[in-house]
């Protein structure tokens, strides 16, 4: 009984704010036959909730509404919470594909869930637009011809931050690294760009993950090495703890720069500008980049209930919009029949949306997008609660992504 569609598919009309926001439905014009169904599979209850969850859903819904209004294609957006459990995620994905007629699954923060669901979509010949996936394996060794990685990957973060900072003269680095695969990869990638740009890596302190709340001893080890930049190869609460404690020990006052290799605007808000000012990070979206991003932010903010328009929201918007354009161009019937054909069409068609501007999707499924190096503003520079970042440098789209040959994606012939 758990798997009746009633459980996962709301018949609710457009959800009112404060209602069940993930049961949204965007329908416009006279759709022919069943609507295209998009399932936003995301984290509504765990550590990625603030980053993705409701924000991602808002982005996907915005795209569906705009596209429906413009073309008359009937689109329905539903949502599920994978609770950061891959088996729950896989279960939902299978049921969505098998019984609920879902054609595309979007978002997928948490790389274990993302990789597992991508596998399912390939098996069922459906589509995954992973706007919340950061793992390079998603378009690398474990790539799938049915999947697209839209917003970012850790390679882009490493390159955008490492390369650009060395070019600005910050050429000696020390890393504070979470001691597991993700941290190691982030550190190794960044170190490569630092060295390639003529910088020097003085050392690294690896701390046990996820058992560390006090980072002071690692920060002191970093300080003792006398670098110009400390690179934090970690994320979330660990990163916040590192920053707070680095401030406490007065590291910034000694002229040290902090490069956060995976930090988002949500972390900036969580730290507050007094603590976060001066931090450097790379993201592929910021609401105040240009007139188009501001226009997008204006349109979507009504759906966000006071949250900032972040990269997850933008990524799900852009990814969903491009998917729908490909569906429209193929025709809903053939699109529903073959996810592979849709993804191939997505790769063939150029992308263009307000959040990211023009771009394209590469053979391995990676959406090419520029990496923007941001610095957090000082409290005095900020004019509003969401006015927090300023642009420092831009890595062009074609060079921000890992070269195709290095990814090791089996179906890409190079």
């Amino acid at each position: 009984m758990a798997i009746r569609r009633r459980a996962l598919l709301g018949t609710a009309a457009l959800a009112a704010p404060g209602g069940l926001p993930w049961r949204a439905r965007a329908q416009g014009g006279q759709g022919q036959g069943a609507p295209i169904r998009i399932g936003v599979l995301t984290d509504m209850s765990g550590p990625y909730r603030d980053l993705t969850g409701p924000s991602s859903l808002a982005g996907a819904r915005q795209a569906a509404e705009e596209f429906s209004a413009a073309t008359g294609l009937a689109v329905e957006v539903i949502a599920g919470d994978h609770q950061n459990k891959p088996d729950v995620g896989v279960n939902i994905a299978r049921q969505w594909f098998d019984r609920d007629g879902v054609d595309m699954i979007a978002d997928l923060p948490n790389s274990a869930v993302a990789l597992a669901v991508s596998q399912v979509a390939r098996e069922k010949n459906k589509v995954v637009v992973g706007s919340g996936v950061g793992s390079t394996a998603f378009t690398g060794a474990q790539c799938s011809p049915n999947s697209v990685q839209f917003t970012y990957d850790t390679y882009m973060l490493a390159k955008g931050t490492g390369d650009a900072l060395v070019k600005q003269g910050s050429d000696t680095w020390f890393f504070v690294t979470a001691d597991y695969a993700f941290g190691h990869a982030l550190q190794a990638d960044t170190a490569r760009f630092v060295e390639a740009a003529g910088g020097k890596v003085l050392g690294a302190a690896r701390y046990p993950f996820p058992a560390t709340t006090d980072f002071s001893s690692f920060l002191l080890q970093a300080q003792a090495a006398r670098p110009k930049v400390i690179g934090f190869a970690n994320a979330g609460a660990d990163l916040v703890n590192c920053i707070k404690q680095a401030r406490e020990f007065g590291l910034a006052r000694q002229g040290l720069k902090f490069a956060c290799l995976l930090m988002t605007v949500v972390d900036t808000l969580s730290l507050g500008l007094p603590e976060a000012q001066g931090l450097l990070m790379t993201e592929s979206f910021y609401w105040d980049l240009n007139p188009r991003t501001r226009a997008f932010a204006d349109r979507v903010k009504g759906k966000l209930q006071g949250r900032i328009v972040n990269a997850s929201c933008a990524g799900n918007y852009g990814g969903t919009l491009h998917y729908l354009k490909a569906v429209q161009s193929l025709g809903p019937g053939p699109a529903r029949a073959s996810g592979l054909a849709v993804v191939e069409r997505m790769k063939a068609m150029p992308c263009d949306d307000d959040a990211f501007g023009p771009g394209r999707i590469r053979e391995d499924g990676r959406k090419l997008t520029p990496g923007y190096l941001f610095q957090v503003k000082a409290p005095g520079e900020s004019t509003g609660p969401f006015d927090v970042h300023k642009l420092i440098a831009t890595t062009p789209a074609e060079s921000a992504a890992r070269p195709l040959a290095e990814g090791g994606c089996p179906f890409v012939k190079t």
Partner: protein
Amino acid sequence: MADTTSITAGAIPDVAQEAHGAWGFSRAQLAGLVILITILVVGPFVLYPVFLMKLLCFALFACAFNLLIGYVGLLSFGHAAYFGMGGYLAGYTAKSLGFTPELAIITGGVTAGLLGVVAGWIAIRRQGIYFAMITLALAQMVYFFCVQAPFTGGEDGIQAIPRGSLLGVVPLDRDMSMYWVVAGIFLACFLLIHRIIHSPYGMVLKSIRENEPRATSLGYRTDDYKLMAFILSATLAGVAGATKSLVFGIATLTDVHWSMSGEVVLMTLVGGLGTVFGPVVGAAVIVTMQNYLAEMGAWVTVIQGVIFVACVLAFRRGLIGELGALLKVKL
């Protein structure tokens, strides 16, 4: 019965003579078994097979856990370690070493069992809440190991584990063929646990639960018995985890995390500690609930917590325990 100090207050102690039918099943239990087997056979034609397989894996996990809490009175708060390690080893051997599914599952079970030897040897030195805290701490160590060890794939987990072919002959790619294997494993382990409990060895375990000093004074080396039970329980938990990793083709950190240890306690508690069918029913309730809660968003943990509190305060016997009390039979 009401104010006994045993954790398995819900179970009616059956150290005394009982009319045992085949394999130690009483008449009511035989009826329950028939219902269970019927559901196993009919289930996949009515419900989604992958969902049922998941349910059976967790049911087996809960039964393994129940072996320890229900019949020896030891609350392990770290059973995720054995469940998760079983899954990792099965996944690794099936994917990287090309093991057939039955070999992979055996490897998973044996590894979990060996882990159980070490953990059990340390943990059985204390009882009650100390035992719970020690098992929790040891499981946390296993979790740290899994986060760092290269073969587990860190937070990506082991992905795309092939189901392979049973004995190298029968391909299991279709959900239905996999289902029968999982159902077979579940039923075999379920009957094995029941057989163990009703063997003379099982009787000694129950006497330890009821009164350890007396069991010692009767000349039983209670520590050996407890350790054996711990190893058995860990092995079966490993088998459950191994099977699950083959069903879903993934093995990840979720299954070694302490919240998984909490979940299996919850399953067993909801169904009824120390009952034969309780863990199965409890697992069914919790797994179904998780599926429903996929649309409840952030309230998942809250609802689980509320169920915990409600069970401890009002339903200590669990669903099956209450049903058994109502029907005046032991289920």
